[in-house]
């Protein structure tokens, strides 16, 4: 068996250290017992499922967030980064992030002034891998559903 060739740039773009770190050690993983809102996200193409839990205070601020489920490195890292991002935000602000992330993953140049992608920019590596974009969007669609308290699971389709 020959030695593995040097890793190609695009693969490293997809599997950046930050993504691998969050995939291996997801933040805020598990059920949030005192959640006020929750929603499920399903990717029917691969069967991946995850749940997003939010604790939204009366003033509309998300005071805590978590997720659970199983999925690929991209979907788990995206969900983990999501929880880090939205804790402390108002729901309106979190929804702006949903728009910004979905637009960024779709390759659209839409960068509202009040949204700085920051770490989330690491997710943009999926743009070179069209079959994997839905993995990265799953958690964000579930977040959107949780804020709107949708009873139906959010899907990537």
């Amino acid at each position, binding site marked *: 068996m020959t030695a593995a060739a040097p890793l190609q740039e695009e693969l490293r773009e997809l599997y950046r250290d930050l993504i691998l770190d969050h995939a291996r050690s997801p933040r805020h993983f598990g059920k949030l017992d005192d959640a006020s809102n929750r929603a499920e996200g399903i990717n029917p193409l691969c069967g991946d499922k995850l749940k997003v839990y939010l604790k939204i205070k009366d003033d509309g601020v998300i005071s805590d967030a978590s997720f659970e489920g199983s*999925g690929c490195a991209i979907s788990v890292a995206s969900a983990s980064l999501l929880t880090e991002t939205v804790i402390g935000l108002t729901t309106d602000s979190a929804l702006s992030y949903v728009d910004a992330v979905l637009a960024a993953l779709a390759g659209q140049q839409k960068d509202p002034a009040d949204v700085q992608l920051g770490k989330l920019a690491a997710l943009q590596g999926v743009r070179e891998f069209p079959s994997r974009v839905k993995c990265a969007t799953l958690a964000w669609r579930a977040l959107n559903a949780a804020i709107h308290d949708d009873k139906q699971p959010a899907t990537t389709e």
Partner: protein
Amino acid sequence: MNEHSQKLAKPVTSGLRDCRSDFPALDQEVNGHSLVYLDSAASSQPPSAVISAVAEYQAHDHANVHRGVHTLSHRATEAYEGARDRAQSFINANTRNEIIFTRGTTEAVNLVAQSFSRPTLKPGDRILITHMEHHSNIVPWQQVCEQTGAELVVAPIDGKGQLKTDELIAQLDERVRMLAIAHVSNALGSINPLREIISNARRFDIPVLVDGAQAVPHMPVDVQELDCDFYALSGHKMFGPTGIGILYGKEAKLDAMPPWQGGGDMILEVSFAGTTYNELPYKFEAGTPNISGAIGLGAAIGYLESIGMALIERHESEILAYMMAELDKIDGIRLIGTADKKASVQSFLLDDIHPHDLGTILDHKGVAIRTGHHCAMPVMEHFSIPGTARASLALYNNRDDVDRLTEALLVAKKIFKK
């Protein structure tokens, strides 16, 4: 080296000629690497013989079949019916009337469920399937159970992904009014001992439908020797086009069944007072059929016969043994589906890397595999896993393909190393 690799590693001596150049799709680069196609269980690549047969028909002979008096209609009919004759001979059906063209295996199973089973099932009757079935051999039976009050019963599989044949045989009794079973499991590769099972089903006069989609491209199939009542297959899994498949049925069974869909071609005479249905096989082929698909499938059968199914079976079993042995050498691999009798596919997991991540990395190295549940979610549930990576073989694969697969898996390990 563990038990598998010792038992299975042996030199290649199949004698199959290198037929890769017959398949134009294999001669391309993907992501900067020559393509290694290990997803034939999902859909196989067509040889030039199929591509040109379809193109020739489209370019020169296309017209509607069975009705025209003009030359092109005659040519189209000859070609379409010629494909039926080829299929009859290929699976050794008794008569050409037993070959029904369908859209594929899925439609063939649905046809039997709705036309054969639904009119006769009653509450208390049972339909027996196995735990390794593809969704297309589960859902049509669930539907007919809902429609009739019959009960769906499932025969178990073991930790190697083999059918527990004794338990299935013990489940056979007067209540079972259909046994629907895969010839070869699409997710696990397990080959079921159909002769033994079917001869036991005969004791209770249980009709048997075999899902042959994953068997026909890989081994000789003789429906009379199997003595099954129905056998379903798909063109695109045996190097033919998509949207065409075959339902084989014993003539006496098909004769007794009502038509499934109504329309043109399946009638002898229509008036508003009533309709006289056409004879077999046309009774089950309502509407203008997939003429070019059938012609392409006929060409695929011709191609397979020119090589020889016994030779293909031997070649693939050697490559599969090599693949299982090489995969087993990789630290952290878990082979899913290690039946004693297997064909063509190997499912696996590597470390705790999600199958989709494996699929993406392999694709980047030009290696095409399938990832996910493979339309066999009960199989995944049996092994308590969400999905697998699956490498599947066809006659055009060789040891180099296996080496490229294992090299790419080592790249994935490197990316995900802790």
